[in-house]
């Protein structure tokens, strides 16, 4: 069966008298008199930290694109606004729903991993989430088709350029999230899923959700 999560062991934190003129690095700050350790004995699983590091990097990328949009729009006389395809609002609802279903799935899988026998078919909600994620990507594709049907292509206007770049960058990251979900399901299937993998994947998915809502507001307000 999958792993269980251990409580962090208690770490003894001896109170040391604070030394002045101690630059650290050596010469001072040696073993405390009792010989106990000021120790890092328990650290959260790397996936829990890693996912936040990844989220930080992706946030920086979209911050860069946002600032590019603001600068490009600020100095331009050629900026033409367009009405965003209404299917985007539907897509937003689909993505929010997928976050909800993933959260249900996460709890059920976590319960299943905690050996609660009454949880049957824990993966069902993961399939629902996966389907909703694919539906969102398909919906984004429909939005691009609608826009190009209006004659708005990547190079038509800076506003449409940014629309395609932002939505495509988000969709690519979202496909990465779908890959993560498939991986979770496969690992669940062969009983090698770790709790930290499950949590990290769902955190990433929720971030994709939040990022999309941010982009929608940006697109709605600026493009």
């Amino acid at each position, binding site marked *: 069966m999958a*792993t269980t999560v*251990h409580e962090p062991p208690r770490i003894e934190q001896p109170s040391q008298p604070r*030394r*002045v*003129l*101690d*630059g*650290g*690095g*050596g*010469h*001072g*700050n*040696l*073993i405390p008199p009792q*010989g106990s*350790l*000021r*120790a*890092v*004995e328990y*650290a*959260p*699983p*790397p*996936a*829990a*930290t*890693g996912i936040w*590091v*990844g989220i*930080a*990097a*992706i946030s*920086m*990328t979209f*911050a*860069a*694109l946002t*600032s*590019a949009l603001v*600068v*490009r729009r600020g*100095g*331009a*006389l*050629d*900026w033409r606004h367009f009405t965003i395809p209404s299917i985007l609002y539907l897509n937003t609802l689909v993505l929010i729903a997928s976050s909800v279903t993933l959260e249900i799935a996460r709890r059920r899988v976590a319960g299943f991993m905690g050996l609660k026998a009454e949880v049957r078919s824990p993966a069902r909600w993961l399939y629902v989430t996966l389907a909703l994620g694919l539906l969102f990507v398909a919906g984004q594709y429909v939005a691009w088709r609608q826009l190009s049907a209006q004659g708005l292509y*990547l*190079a038509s206007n*800076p506003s449409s*350029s940014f629309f395609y*770049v932002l939505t495509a*960058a988000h969709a690519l990251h979202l496909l990465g999230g779908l890959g993560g979900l498939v991986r979770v399901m496969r690992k669940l299937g062969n009983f090698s899923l*770790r709790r*930290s993998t499950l949590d990290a994947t769902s955190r990433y998915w929720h971030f994709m959700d939040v990022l999309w809502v941010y982009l929608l507001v940006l697109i709605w307000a600026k493009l």
Partner: protein
Amino acid sequence: MHDMSAHAHVAHHAPPTSFIRKHIFSIDHKVIGKQYYGLALVAVFVGMVLSWLMRLHLGWANLAIPGLHWLSSTGAPGDVMTPEYYLQLMTMHGTIMVFFVLTTAPFAAFGNYFLPIQVGAEDMPFPHFNMMSFWVTFVAFLVLIASFFVSDGPTLGGWTQYAPLSAVGAVAGPGQGMGVVLWAASIAIFCVGQLLGSLNFITTTLNMRTKGMSLWRMPLTTWGWFITSVMGLTAFAVLMPACILLILDHVAGTSFFVASNLVLNDQLQPHAGGSTLLWQHLFWFFGHPEVYIAIVPGMGIVSHVLVANMRRPMLSHRVLVYSMGALAVLSYMVYGHHMFVSGMNPVSSIAFSFPTLIITIPSTIIVLIWIGSLYGSRLRINTASLFALGMISMFISGGVSGFFLAQPSLDIMLHATYFVVGHFHLVMAVAAIFGIFSGTYFWFPKMFGRMMNETLGKIHFWLTFVGAYCIFMPFHYLGLAGNVRRYQAFVDDYLQPLIPVHRFITVAALVTGAAQLIFLYNLIHSRFGGEKAPDNPWQATSLEWATPTTPPPYDNFGGHLPTVYHDPYQYGIEGSTGDYVMQNSPEKVQSVGEEA
């Protein structure tokens, strides 16, 4: 000792047996570190040969360099370099050196090899990402080199690729079509590789430290790599989308960076409304932190090497770490100083000038800690410590000119001259290279189980040290004399008297470059025929010297992670094994500074 169950949430993997999984597609951080080092070594020789060609052309314009037409028949017809080809070589020299040498060697190569060992981990937490990080970087290098082989050669836009000339295509000159697309693709791919690397470095530092390894017990090298990886994560995440927008301007006809009504070669460009300064903002938001990405790991390495050879810790371990952190934070606030002459709002120039002057404070603190710690120490003189001293020397010499350039009023005069070339080569490039050399001579015994030849090492040091000054100090005088940079030949009357200086620099560059062959020989010869290295040849204290074998086994510590009892640098004390106590030794020692 405690067993590996402490890292139960990390996937453990058995040592590979096949050649491919062992040496090529390896997930072992040590192999990946060595692969990065090898890549940097190839790249640095390519970059150096390019600089030789440029220097020969600058010293003796229209000189036929035998065989040059093999490199490019259009760029060097009759073996004589065309002006455009000079700029193409310059661009590739800068790009290769900054990305594939100064970023990969001190950060990715040494960091991969030693960061996990120094914090007492058996590997990085995401080893497959780590493998991808190297191979993605390798592909980026191939894509960049491929631009030598497209019809009109690599881009000539400089490593900064300023828009709009970088964004309009072949009309802007040879290499500005396919060459720029390959350049931007290479850099975007490179960013992916470094983001994956940074992800691993950060999580290793935060989550994989062994029992007893508190943050303040990490060696200064680990701090250097950790701080650098945080910078890398934020800087490369911005450069990547910028490169993608640049590619779109090329291949999809968008107008992110090209303004309206631009006429080039009598052709009206089919772009409108783009912002040329936008590229500079995005590029330098990455570009300035990149300078610190190159130098901060070197600072860590130099501190680590000096401490082991001074046999006492730095005056202040913590202030050194805080100063490196301050450099990282400030590096994002100063990037506008690259744009003082770009036509940016003068108020912005002042806003960027102040943090630029402020960033000299942590830099100065770091230097003062080094010098203060060295004062009165009986430094062991070996090649590693000599290169560490050399790095400090280069950093000071190159850093002093930074005070001038930080002020917009002076920078406007000096910006387009060789003064800037001298400044950044010394403070960032040569200083970082000296850090790499110092680390190589220091860690080679651990990485390959053999000692390097010290005599050859010292000859290499003195030739390189004197040579680097002969090359780069005159650049400052040239700049003050008004010698503009990026020119492929100096035909103006006022520049004629400076040509002998250029010839002196060229000779110095050829000799100093040739001296690197001594290093290469030493590296290869020692790898196979060097004296067998003991586990801890420098009597050093940090965990990389506590591995059960040399080189370390696949899981670094042979199945039992060490427990850490001490600060990293317990030197100059009475330990049972000598004047030092290793971090994993449970021995209780009397602190020298206890009464303080």
